[in-house]
């Protein structure tokens, strides 16, 4: 994994020279997870920046917050925000740029390469540690994970602890950056979309009952939506928590707003919520895995979105989130796009 000393120096300079408002990066966590998002405003606080395999969070989500904050201010500070991105996160940034949600000048991208490694999966780590708490996770020279607990160190092979999505990683270093820390190491990829095989082998009826059982557990905490950078709509079709009501919204608009799903966490409502959300992310999701990580009930949401990412590739030859110059998938078409559904 990359060492970020050069990145820290550059970031310090940016803050000192006032070129960025603040830097979004990773710092020490405290909830039993060693890393957490960190917002650095002063150059001297840059020493708190960390980079290790527990930096799972997709920080691009906070660019949505930044945009909302600017919209609330009368005279917003127009300087860019510095942001640390892994390879997968940078693809989310590309999608936001493609959709013109943010401007390239709004961000100063501090890229970090995962090189031959990636981030650890919290479930796999918990199983490995069998009740002990991880104080630190590092990578040694043999590309093995070294976990420090209060009882000493434990080693593990990378495949044992790497997040599922890292095993299918298509971008182990950022595809867009202003500064890159670490090597642009090529990673051989055995089976892209390999994690979908088990589910794809199920019959339609089996798949329906699998998803119904999984989604019945959902309590509609909306963490999956809240953590996703691409779920930035102020008015979400399947979510009543963000009615964009202002003093100018007319009574008619409020009265006629359709409630597509109820608040109740019933089967029917949960299914519609998740399926519609997945469809709205088709051709946009870059599989950062945050939705599944955030879910307190461990619903395997990645599969839904990953399947649609695969369809984007197979049906339209579209690789999501690589080239900011490309249009968003759903805003363009090619003559050779499949038409067999048109009768």
């Amino acid at each position, binding site marked *: 994994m990359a060492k970020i000393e050069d990145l820290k120096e550059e970031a310090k300079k940016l803050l000192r020279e006032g070129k960025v408002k603040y830097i979004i990066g990773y710092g020490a*966590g*405290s*909830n*039993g*997870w060693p*890393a*957490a*998002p960190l*917002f650095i405003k002063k150059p001297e606080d840059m020493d708190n920046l960390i980079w290790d395999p527990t930096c799972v*969070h997709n920080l691009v*989500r*906070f660019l949505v917050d930044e945009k909302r904050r600017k919209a*609330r201010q009368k005279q917003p500070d127009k300087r860019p925000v510095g942001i640390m991105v892994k390879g997968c996160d940078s693809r989310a940034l590309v999608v936001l740029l493609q959709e013109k949600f943010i401007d390239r000048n709004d961000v100063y991208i501090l890229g970090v390469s995962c090189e031959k490694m990636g981030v650890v999966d919290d*479930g796999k780590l*918990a*199983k490995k540690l069998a*009740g002990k*708490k991880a104080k630190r996770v590092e990578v040694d020279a043999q590309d093995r994970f070294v976990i420090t607990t209060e009882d000493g160190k434990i080693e593990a092979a990378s495949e044992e602890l790497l997040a599922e999505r890292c095993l299918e990683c298509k971008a182990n270093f950022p595809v867009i950056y202003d500064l890159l820390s670490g090597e642009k190491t090529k990673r051989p990829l055995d089976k892209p979309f390999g994690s979908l095989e088990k589910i794809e082998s199920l019959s339609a009826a089996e798949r329906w009952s699998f998803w119904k059982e999984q989604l019945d557990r959902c*309590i*509609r*905490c*909306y*963490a999956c*939506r*809240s*953590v996703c950078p691409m779920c930035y709509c102020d008015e979400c079709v399947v979510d*009543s*928590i*963000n*009615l964009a*009501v*202002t*003093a*100018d*919204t007319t009574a008619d608009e*409020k009265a006629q707003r359709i409630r597509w799903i*109820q*608040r*109740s*966490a*019933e089967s029917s409502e949960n299914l519609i919520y998740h399926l519609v959300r997945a469809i709205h992310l088709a051709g946009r999701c870059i599989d950062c895995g*945050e939705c599944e*990580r*955030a879910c*307190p*009930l*461990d619903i395997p949401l990645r599969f839904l979105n990953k399947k649609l990412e695969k369809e984007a590739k197979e049906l339209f030859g579209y690789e999501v989130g690589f080239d900011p110059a490309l249009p968003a998938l759903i805003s363009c078409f090619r003559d050779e796009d499949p038409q067999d559904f048109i009768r």
Partner: protein
Amino acid sequence: MEKTLPKKSFPQWVKKLSSWNVYVPRKDEEGRWNYVEADGGEVSLDVLQTTLSPKKILFPQREVFLEFTKILAGDRETLEVKEVLPVVKPTVIIGARPCEARAAWMLDEVFSGEFKDVYYWKRRDQTTLVGLACTNPPSENCFCTSVEGSPHSEEGLDLLLTDLGDKYYVHSLTAKGEKLISAAKELFEEPKPEAKKQVKAAHAESEKKIKRQLKDARPIAQKLKGMFESPLWDEESMSCLRCGICTYLCPSCHCFDISDEIETPSPLQGQRVRTWDTCQFPDFTMHSSGHNPRPDKASRLRQRLLHKFQYFIQVYDKFMCVGCGRCITLCPVGIDIIKVLDKVRDHGA
């Protein structure tokens, strides 16, 4: 009444409770613990912290309040409104942690008073809580002793079980608890003086094992009174995602929404339901005019903390937080209630 129950007799006891609806914590294939109906399946109390607390049994995510129907009688249209009270079989929750029972005790306060919430009480009155003392903290983030709880607290419980290795020490605290013992009298033994000593020692030991501390919780509660306008809330809420995890998984959080769900629009037929809601959602307090007294994450984080650590104390003289640590463990961005309150305590020092 105090008894002991050999561990090997525990599954038999549960079987004898067939006239109750028994909930136990159970692990699924992925290793996650949750309270489920025992249903004759495997019962073991070798459990860490469940994801969802027993709150969902007393205060379900969806509760039907009433049904409304428009009826056409000739050429006249009339409205029939029928209240729908839950029909609850006597229920036992085995293995509730003392913190979860204390949370039930807090919910009892909220749903009582001048306006007694009959839906909650229909469930609560039928529920017997059998607690399991925490010989080891069930979570890395437990801090019950800092908020006036303890790993062997009896508040809110009908029975308290303490694991003594080969047996459970059973302390019955209410008539409801005694009924459970009577259902399988033959399995229980009189406690030997050795066992009584062991329980005392186990309880004292368990308090020392609590991993995290929040020092000076009461003085913090006092200090919070003057911290309403502090910039601390903005700093600490920067990474908040405004999801509902902390509040939905909290054993004592009880905010709810009431909405009408239409089954058929014409003729109108539907239900008025109560569902979980959270002060962390942006439109929780939004007026129809667009005015929002809590328009940003800072004010909402402040509300959550002040409600649990100050307002509840002003009204009931108890912390509303039981120190289970779920909000800390499950927050996707690591917002830690203990750390935030530590900063409150040390603010300006």
